[in-house]
């Protein structure tokens, strides 16, 4: 990481600490914002957050490892989360899964070479009456069929 990038990130984290408060209870919100913007929370970011909140970096890392939406390794610019729970499964989740892996040429848990997409499974996301459902970043897509799912990919930047 370049020095000016590090400085920019430090500054960004300082702003977040100001916004949410210099307090342990701000940790998750800070992590969520960094994850959203940088698609992961780098070692350096973890150290900075720990320093500014006055906690041990191991604590920060252990929180990241607990939550499925937070990552210490870089993700793609867009994360696709396909619901794998029973109602979506019965509504045809497997067909969507096959179409997505074929289209992107990667398996679930992987990121495309151009870093555009990461493909993940997720558990029930509260759209069970409109399955199969998936999230791309925070946006929700429901009543998918293979064609629709693939077309949605084309519209993502």
């Amino acid at each position, binding site marked *: 990481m370049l020095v000016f990038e590090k400085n920019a990130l430090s500054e960004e984290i300082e702003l977040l600490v100001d916004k949410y408060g210099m307090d342990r209870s*701000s940790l998750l*919100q800070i*992590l969520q914002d960094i994850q959203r913007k940088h698609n992961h929370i780098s070692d350096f970011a973890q150290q900075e957050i720990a320093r500014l909140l006055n906690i041990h970096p191991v604590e920060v890392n252990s929180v990241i490892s607990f939550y499925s939406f937070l990552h210490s390794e870089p993700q793609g610019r867009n994360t696709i989360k396909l619901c794998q*729970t*029973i109602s979506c499964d019965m509504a045809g989740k497997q067909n969507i899964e096959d179409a997505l892996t074929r289209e992107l040429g990667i398996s679930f848990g992987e990121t495309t070479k151009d870093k555009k997409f990461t493909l993940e499974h997720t*558990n*029930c996301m509260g759209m069970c009456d409109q399955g199969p459902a998936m*999230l791309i970043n925070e946006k929700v897509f429901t009543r998918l069929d293979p064609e629709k799912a693939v077309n949605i990919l084309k519209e993502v930047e």
Partner: protein
Amino acid sequence: METKLDKIKKRTGPVLFSKYTRGDAIKKVISIPREDVLFELKTSGLKGRGGAGFPTSTKWMLVAASTADKKFIVCNADEGEPGTFKDRVLLMEYPELVFDGMVVAGYTIGAKTGIVYLRGEYEYFLGQLEDYLMKMRDDNLLGKNILGKEGFDFDISIRLGSGAYVCGEETALIESLEGHRGEPRNRPPYPVNTGYLGFPTVVNNVETLSSVPHIMVKGGEWFKQHGTDKSTGSKLFSISGDCEKPGVYELPWGTSLYVLLQLVGAKNTKAVQVGGASGVCIPKNKFDRFLAYEDIATGGSVIIFNESRDMLHVLENFMEFFVEESCGQCTPCRIGNTKLLEGVRKIKSGDYTFGYINTLKDLGKTMQVASKCGLGQSSPNAFISILENFKDEIFFHNGNGSK
């Protein structure tokens, strides 16, 4: 300020989906003493809709009675149980019920701060909720001296989860709000004593809070006229799976599965999973059972399986869910769920003995008593009920066309 929410067409139903004008419950309660609010709530018989069914008035009373400097009301909008989505409908279409309920709680227990813990998966409507809160502030339904009531200050903030089912468990939720891993705590102490940041905290489900404004405006007696003796009021059911009309339905407590299945257009139904992955599987010869705390208590998830479904596949899906979502803190749950999943896969491949199956069922019973929180205590329910009720299909392959 006109928001997107003003344009949503309202549903109809006996209690929750009956008419309510925003702010009405707040106007009503600030003119009466807190004791009267608690009395009305007690009369209503309202019990927690998050699954555990704890009497809401008792919880509020415990926190109201505390003399701590700070108190909190937390709305549990983590809604992660497979097959449930009614809290999403309430938040998106009826925010006036959820938020007015929180304001009434704040007034009654003496809290100045309300926090909504919204699951990360629901971030897509966070902006809409924030807009609604702004509108409430503009109208002095939040903020200082609410509606002119001297000294009644209350505001609500929304915090997002980050994809962990166990954070719906109230003590894990508090850990998460405090910036920790969402690992459930030993109880006692309960959140009503030692909650968020160590202060007395009421944690209520979205639907529980949404019932409160109706009770305040129309009265506890009115509420009690719906439902059964022990299960007063109505319940939202989230219906998914094999039926023509999935969605959210408001029905009085005490409705039988049979009636519910007719209503949603379910045909050739073989089984119904009530209560999500941690609930129980009811086979068709028991569809006369009814939904109520007296019989099948539930947070409202109803997943329907028709004759074409393979129940072992269903069970495998549930066990995969628990293996992924166990926080791993205690051994019965961490190891137990892995063993049960392994068992299901062995049954699937025909590699089992009945001695082994019985050992697994015993393991499930141990998990029910030895696990630290509700996740591990209830995760064997599906395993036990599906293997019991679908023996023929699973072990003798003579179920109704399931293979």
